[in-house]
């Protein structure tokens, strides 16, 4: 019994350990280059949109499906936003709002066919992928649109205000450190609270040393990140956006009725329906939500590039899908976590970044990513089968 529990925890945190291991391997291969403050900053900047997309994609994979249209919606929303700002002089915040609504509408479009007409999601999103890409080319007349103003690019390339307590050559941002401190206190307190509530209700609790190790690892990662960021240019706005989105969706999937309904639908749709769950509604909102997050990713990506291009977001859907499966989601649905998907996205990001640093070509990078995906899912499924 006891050993089984530890195994379960190992499985849960195995991906985090794998991520740390991959990071260390590239740290050695690149002679420490991947741990420089600038590179850590790049990691966040480069992978923000994948993390955002992976959180939305996880909900799709929980239903046992995927959304192939994501990359095209990213491109389309980015293009529309850039056109509104540059050609029609619409204020940036208004343009953002409009484009988020556009994303929602794109999601509703797919959701309508999937949920209410029972068209397989694979087909519907294959169609939105083609349509979205085509419309992007039409909207941009196959040209790149830019450069975008500062108020726009802030979202993808900007930083939160900093309070420098170091020197101008070796800056140290107090705000980043304060955020890390507050987050640490929050993590420890919530762990303590959950421990106490469990005791109060008389449930089994994991041994304290296990909790301690788990929290130590999480805190170490947190501080490592934040100190690196503090000694570069502070916290990127993308980081804040990512943290908020991941936090919200983690809460939804683990703590709310709506989240549980998605798991139930993926686990057994018929049983879910006979338990009073409106499975059509669940499907509809899952895909609508994917449209929303695609629009946010579209804004972030165009902001980071300071322009909108027709080819933007090409293949993002595959990165997001791969992140979910690397992070332990089941292709049949009903299994997977937001944290898993985020770790999956980070593993892909660390791999990409590390391989670039040691000078491997993007062609080889694709091969390695493919192998990692195959390996992660194989290990997951084979180990489950043994049980």
């Amino acid at each position: 019994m006891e050993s089984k529990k530890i195994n379960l925890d190992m499985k849960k945190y195995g991906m985090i350990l794998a991520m740390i291991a991959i990071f260390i391997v590239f740290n050695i291969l690149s002679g420490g280059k991947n741990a420089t403050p600038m590179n850590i900053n790049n990691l966040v900047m480069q992978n923000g949109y994948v993390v955002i997309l992976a959180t939305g994609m996880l909900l799709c994979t929980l239903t046992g499906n995927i959304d192939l249209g994501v990359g095209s919606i990213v491109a389309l929303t980015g293009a529309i936003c850039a056109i509104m700002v540059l050609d029609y002089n619409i204020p940036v915040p208004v343009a953002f709002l409009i484009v988020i609504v556009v994303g929602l509408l794109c999601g509703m479009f797919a959701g309508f066919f999937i949920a209410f007409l029972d068209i397989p999601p694979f087909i519907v999103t294959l169609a939105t992928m083609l349509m979205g890409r085509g419309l992007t080319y039409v909207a941009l007349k196959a040209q790149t649109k830019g450069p975008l103003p500062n108020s726009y690019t802030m979202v993808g390339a900007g930083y939160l205000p900093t309070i420098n307590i170091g020197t101008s050559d070796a800056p140290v941002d107090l705000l980043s450190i304060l955020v890390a401190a507050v987050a640490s206190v929050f993590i420890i307190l919530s762990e303590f609270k959950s421990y106490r509530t469990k005791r109060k209700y008389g449930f089994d609790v994991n041994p304290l040393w296990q909790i301690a190790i788990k929290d130590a690892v999480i805190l170490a990662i947190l501080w490592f990140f934040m100190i690196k960021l503090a000694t570069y240019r502070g916290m990127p706005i993308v980081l804040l956006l990512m943290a908020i989105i991941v936090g919200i969706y983690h809460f939804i999937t683990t703590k709310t009725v709506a989240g549980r309904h998605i798991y139930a639908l993926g686990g057994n749709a018929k049983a879910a329906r006979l338990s009073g769950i409106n499975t059509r509604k669940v499907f509809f909102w899952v895909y609508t939500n994917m449209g929303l997050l695609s629009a946010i990713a579209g804004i972030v990506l165009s902001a980071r590039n300071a322009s909108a291009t027709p080819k933007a977001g090409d293949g993002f859907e595959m990165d997001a899908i791969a992140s979910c499966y690397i992070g332990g989601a089941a292709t049949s649905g009903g299994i997977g976590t937001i944290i898993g998907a985020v770790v999956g996205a980070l593993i892909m990001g660390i791999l990409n970044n590390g391989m670039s640093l040691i000078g491997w070509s993007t062609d080889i990078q694709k091969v390695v990513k493919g192998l990692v995906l195959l390996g992660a899912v194989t290990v997951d499924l084979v180990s489950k089968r043994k049980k």
Partner: protein
Amino acid sequence: MSDVILEMNHITKEFSGVKALDDINLKVKRGEIHALCGENGAGKSTLMNILSGVYPYGSYSGEIVYNGEVCRFRNIKDSESKGIVIIHQELALSPYLSIAENVFIGNEIAKSGVINWTKTMQKAREMLTIVGLENENLNVPVGSLGVGKQQLIEIVKALAKKVDLLILDEPTSALNDEESKHLLDIILQLKKKGITCILISHKLNEISYVADTITIIRDGKTIETLEKGKDDISEDRIIRGMVGREITNRYPPRDCKIGDVIFEVKNWNVYHPEDEHKRVIKDVSFYVRAGEVVGFAGLMGAGRTELAMSLFGRAYGQKISGQIFKNGKELHLKTVSDAIKNKIAYVSEDRKNHGLILIDDIKHNISLAALRDYFSERGVINQYEEILSANEYKKKIGIKAKTVEQQVGALSGGNQQKVVLAKWMVTEPDILILDEPTRGIDVGAKYEVHCIINDLAKAGKGIIFISSEMPEIIGMCDRVYILNEGEIIGELTKEELSQEKIMKYIISHQGRRKHNGK
């Protein structure tokens, strides 16, 4: 010694440290029908899987002597080449392939990979005659046949493999009484042709009907072997061996006051979901009183499940008309969640596909239907309450599991059924529709489920009880409606109830319909 076809000696098999089989011995005589009895999880299927090579030699200890020679099967092909064929509980037919194709699947009549269709058809026709299906069109896809016929096709498939020892794992679990009888008669015919048969079944009347020898297994051990003509093989005797104690009363007595009418259905009509001209339920009216267990008897396909599901928030059918009253007030249930809100629960006949999320754990399954109303506040789940209530029900109705975190898919059938019952009990319903609540679960668990039903009735709930097992209907119900082809054709009170009476109603109704049809 030559009359013994199979001996399995000292078979022991472990699953990750847990002994599923513990030194089991089985001796089967040539040409007999040998029944294997035991509660769910006693190890019957495991033993047969070892015999047929599903669990290869080396994964267990002990020896198999077949036709006087020691056998070490590495896979199913090995055992089949010796003439041992197993038919599993779940049908292994390919629904879109034709009857002929299915009969010879994996065993095609072919020369260098090219199928000889003339010969295939000829042989298939020949063999279908044995099971009385000579009039079936060989080119029809198997999926379009009823379960009873599909089960017969499975037997034909086994016969095509030159079978000497046929193993049937609960062949009648999905069949109605008539189909079951037909199947058992075919097994008796096969016996005359010299085929030895091992039969696993929960239905003790079937075992008494066909078996020559009965081996009883309990907790992975051989308890005893009974022989027809030598030992007492009455149902009570077999049950005593299976559960290790005498169940003096197979249906627990219920002593409760029946109150006023709490649920009433008037002129209920339902059309088939895919065919708007086909009326599945015809003008059905009935009522249930508080504390009353009302049975619905009928043949397979009589429309009982369709009626139940259409009442449960229109989960089945289209163009539904009629009225539902609860405590005298008319209800308009448009969705399942309406039904749940109005304190109606439906326990599906198909717990694996319609009742449970097998990949999820016990606590999440139990809370699922009550999540919104009992376990959450403004959409946020109280996970602690969830665990508490799961533990409460685990104790209350005896779900055998280590913790409520255990995956439901890993539980035995009886325990899964208890999880489904718990899931609906937490919604605190006034009306419970139980559709075949004891299907495929063993005698002990059945008794426990019956006790749960009695407790619910005692608490003043109205219970609609659907079962294909007549003795169960008669043993459990206060009043029974007889349903045939979507119509209520009779109503019997507890005093009037008997199997003969129910059958008489059905047969005379069917006869009348045929007469009118012509």
